[in-house]
């Protein structure tokens, strides 16, 4: 009876049998890395928008407060995307001839809303509430990063559950005084551990990690 398999199969089978542990572990590691890569999570991926709205220009350059546009961030789960009217408050007076702003004027004229590309997409089974985080002293920049340095908007956090839990398990590391919430330049002080603990007590912050906090 002739040899069915080539001799090289001896080596291949030995390696695959004894290496199975490492191969499986390796695949697992690859999956772990891919799942956290910006390819999947979209971190640092600047989105093209119908109007190239620059947070850098409006926030840092002009000093407009976050809440001028994101009006419901303190009261609602949804921070709010400004209606076209908000843009036109200023842009009916300035840059009225700019071609870049034509979609805004068109929207106002025709009554068709501007389809903004969503940057921070939380899964449908996650129920996140902006208002309670803002009210309890968690600043915009903690999750959204230095928006005032973003010409186009991109995502800074991975929005993976582990990313949420990092803070939910120990809120003291990120809490700041409530009057600093909308301050883009706030950095944790050197003694954040102590200051954070004091603020957690003062604001009655609970470390909520049970499932129904976010999943309903």
């Amino acid at each position, binding site marked *: 009876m002739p040899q069915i398999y080539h001799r090289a199969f001896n080596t291949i089978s030995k390696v695959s049998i004894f290496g199975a542990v490492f191969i499986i572990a390796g695949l697992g590691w690859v999956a772990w890395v*891919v799942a956290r890569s910006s*390819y*999947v999570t*979209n971190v640092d991926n600047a989105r093209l928008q119908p109007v190239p709205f620059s947070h850098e220009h409006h926030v840092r350059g002009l000093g407009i407060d976050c809440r001028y546009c994101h*009006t*419901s961030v303190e*009261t*609602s*789960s*949804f921070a*709010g*995307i*400004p*209606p*076209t*009217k908000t843009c036109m408050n200023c842009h009916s007076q300035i840059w009225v001839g700019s071609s870049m702003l034509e979609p805004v004027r068109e*929207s*106002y004229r025709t*009554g*068709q*809303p*501007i*389809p*903004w*590309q*969503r940057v921070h*997409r939380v*899964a*449908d*089974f996650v*129920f996140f*509430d902006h*208002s*309670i985080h803002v*009210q*309890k002293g968690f600043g915009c920049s903690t999750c959204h990063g230095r928006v005032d340095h973003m010409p186009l908007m991109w995502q800074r956090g991975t929005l993976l559950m582990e990313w949420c839990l990092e803070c939910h398990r120990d809120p003291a590391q990120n809490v700041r005084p*409530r009057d600093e919430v909308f301050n883009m330049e706030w950095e944790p002080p050197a003694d954040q551990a102590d200051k954070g603990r004091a603020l957690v007590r003062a*604001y*009655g912050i*609970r470390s*909520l*990690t*049970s*499932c*129904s*906090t976010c*999943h*309903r």
Partner: protein
Amino acid sequence: MPSVNTRTETARDGAGLADRLRTARGQQYWRCLEELAGGPAFEEFLRREYPDQEAEWSNPITRRQFLVLMGASLALAGFTGCTRPPAETIIPYIRQPERLTPGRPLFFATAMPLGGFSTGLLVRSNEGRPTKVEGNRDHPASLGATDVFAQASILGLYDPDRAQSVTRLGRIATWEDAVHALQGALDQQRGKKGAGLRILTEAVASPSLRTQLRDLLRAYPAARWHEYEPVGREAVREGTRLAYGTDLHVFYNFAEADVVLSLDADFLASGPGHLRYTREFTDRRRVRGDQLRMNRLYVVESTVTQTGAAADHRLPLRPRDVERFARAVAGRLSVAGLSPGERTFGGWNLDELAADLRDHRGRSLVVAGDGQPAVVHALAHGMNQALGNLGRTVVVTDPIEADLIEGGAEPAPGSLADLVQEMRVGTVEALLILGGNPVYTAPADAGFSDALFQISRKSGSLTAHLSLHDNETTRLCQWLLPETHYLEAWSDGRAYDGTAAIQQPLIAPLYGGRSAHEVVGILTNGLERPGHEIVKDYWRRYFERRVRSGDFEAFWRRALHDGVVAGTRLQPRTGMTLRTDWASRPPAPATEGFDVVFRPDPTIHDGRFANNGWLQELPKPLTKLTWDNAVLLSPATADRLGLHYEMGKDGGRPGWRGGERGEVIAPVVRVHFRGPPVDAPAWVTPGHPDETITLHLGYGRERAGHVGTGTGFNFYALRTADAPWSGGGATLERTGREYTLAGTQQHYLMENRNLMRAAPLEHYRSHRDFATAGEHVHEHPAEAEKTIPERQSDLQEQTKGSRLPLSLFPDYNYDPPQYRWGMAIDLTVCTGCSACVVACQAENNIPVVGKTEVTRGREMHWLRIDRYYEVDRRDPAALRNPRAYFQPVPCMQCENAPCELPCPVEATSHSHDGLNDMVYNRCVGTRYCSNNCPYKVRRFNFLQYADYATESLRLGYNPDVTVRSRGVMEKCTYCVQRIRRADIEVAKRALEPGTPDLRQPVRELQTACQQACPAHAIVFGDINDRTSEVRKMKDEPRNYGLLADLNTRPRTTYLAALRNPNPRLETA
């Protein structure tokens, strides 16, 4: 086909149920007769938790093919989880509406009309989409509660089968065409003063529409308006004519009533004001602490109702005997013109009954049912007057149809019979039917559909139907005009006590429908006016004539905001004298054969809700049937007819099939009653009067829609004009055929381990701990009070010397500032109305599964209501009339939750406030948790039940709750989305400057079931808060936990049921 309407059949059958019952090994509280009788077949049945069909592989695919397909789909589908998140857009407003904050719902007051009366509601709107109906606390007919119809009306709004376009002879047309046709018909009629114009409506709840119709009749003096309501209240009105000689309106004040006698009145479940009546009635029997007073309810009834189930004394009577009973009681109460007749009636000593009523002069109440003949209503008026109840528990007022602006009576609309008469003669040329479905609901002998068909065929005629659905009536009309749902249109209505409410739309018409106001507006002057203007103009006239002070806009806005128009309640009339000439009328002659009782269906009413899946799948409160109606008859009658209804006989059929959660095979009987016979399954109902059958109307629709068409049996075919509610002389015949019913009464049996606990009030006085006496409960109230350090030191003490902990469960810490959510359900006041079940379904996006899936025990209701019967086994006659109890069973949210331990992926776990969280996105569908749950409250999505595809249904989902997909377990969460929202709102308020304490009690939080409950039986709250109502209820001595001896430490507990029987009633 042999007639079985003979006594000889009994012998063939051998021992009747009463005999078997005497030797039964079953139990005192039971849900179905099989459980009561016990026996090996039943025990075998219990062991099979899942139905037989589960094992059946009915697909033609072989095992090998299956493996190939599964392997391929696994290989391919497995990677779909690895895709990148899809790109989404955010669509903002152009100009954001004022007061609207995206993410925060708004609530608007409105009112729902049904049967000529309206109920005030508060409807939640998420970004402009109505998603949930609640009661309006300020509205007298609601007091914050709702019934099943109001709860399910959200689904009716989004029903994809609604009429979506104007059609003429089945072809799509436009409103312009329709308006043109209407105007053409009017032009023809103008010369004849409208002699050929007829309008047919349902009972009209709206005073402004009444005024519009009257104006129309002024413009066309020869035109006529006819009204037909299949579940109407003609007998009530006729009763007042008999008793007082004039048309009057009657309503009741149960808040003042200590003793109530119901003459076949289902005042807790149907008719105008039943929500208010339920609240007032149950408030008088809410035993708390040392307040040990309860009202007392005597019910005689010719069918089975929730009111009968709530009674302290119930007497099932054949329909014609109710009048005899009423006469006998009235005679004993010395009502003028009546002589005291029989002293005992069905075992009741009427002297004692009369004495009980007389002892509570002015605080008693006699209520006659809408389905009783006028003379019984007159007898009730006579008794109430003799008892001095008039003006106290009974309020008699001017008719509710009286004009609000002008006052005084107005000519009553014509009847359906008059209309058919004229249609036959040929005087009718243009017929406009506003709402309703008269072709389906008209009496079988009225001949309405033939007459309508003839007119529609006639050249030059016009027939149009303004309707929500393309239904049986539409088919025989030339024009279909899509009607607006009540949540889409402006209107108004009056409650049971006359209080007016503005019906405010929540959303623009989804399919370009128009309201009756708008269509009648076109008829009156040919002009199209928006309903808003019409309704507002009416109220402006009202304001100018009747209010006259202040500013109309302020009055209008106040009325819209509050949901009631102040000062429109009907004023009681006094100084009326009772006539006596009716008293000598001879009672109806006795007839041979069975008596028939017609009633609207408890869940789909007169058939108008037949296409509503929530209501179809809602188990009927007493029979627990879904998706069908049946011929209800008593066990003794079934025995006599030889209708085998118990398992194990004749090879187990008819009976159940398929294990604990299986289906019911029922024998089909043929009902002969004044017309062609109808075949329908028989359903044996304990407590039903003998020799009587109950037929629920509303089923057997031919053109209801995808959901309702072809379900159940049409008993309108047997209903004639001379016997709208009951009649004698029916015969029943066995057909030998069988029919599968989807009954849920045997689903999720918990094998009667002392689940239902009840006692008479007298017993409770001396045995406060009867509910828990002798029970080995692991947790003492004192134990629950202990703080965590105290418990830990206890535990250390107990486990000294042992290396293993005593409990597998960690000792969670719920001490303040944590909340400790809990629920208490008072079984004394629960009437089984099931509003909570539909409310839960609406709030939590619970899918409808359909009849086939229900027969497999896969209904998805998170909250079920178990109905228990109780008989004294020493009394063989007791089965004729068992006491009934209702027990709502949501998730118990156990502290030591058996479901949490077996989950391999921790998809169910304990939350910081003690809820058993269910994480859908983690669940892999092993169903171990359900297997381990002793309460059987977990539900599994065996198939893709949730509808992701139908565009209109997606609008109605609650955006705060995940819509679950196939393969996922789900269960009651105590409405965790509401808890979290309330928690967040309270936490935010606590941070406002000047608030002393960071931990505030959460007061405004209600679960959906609690909010809907008209009896206020379900109470939810923070057990840590000693002042909360739920905590006070849990401190009651009759508080008990279901299966508490398993040491699950349930957070949901029950207050044992109390009844207040009259110990002397059944003495000779």
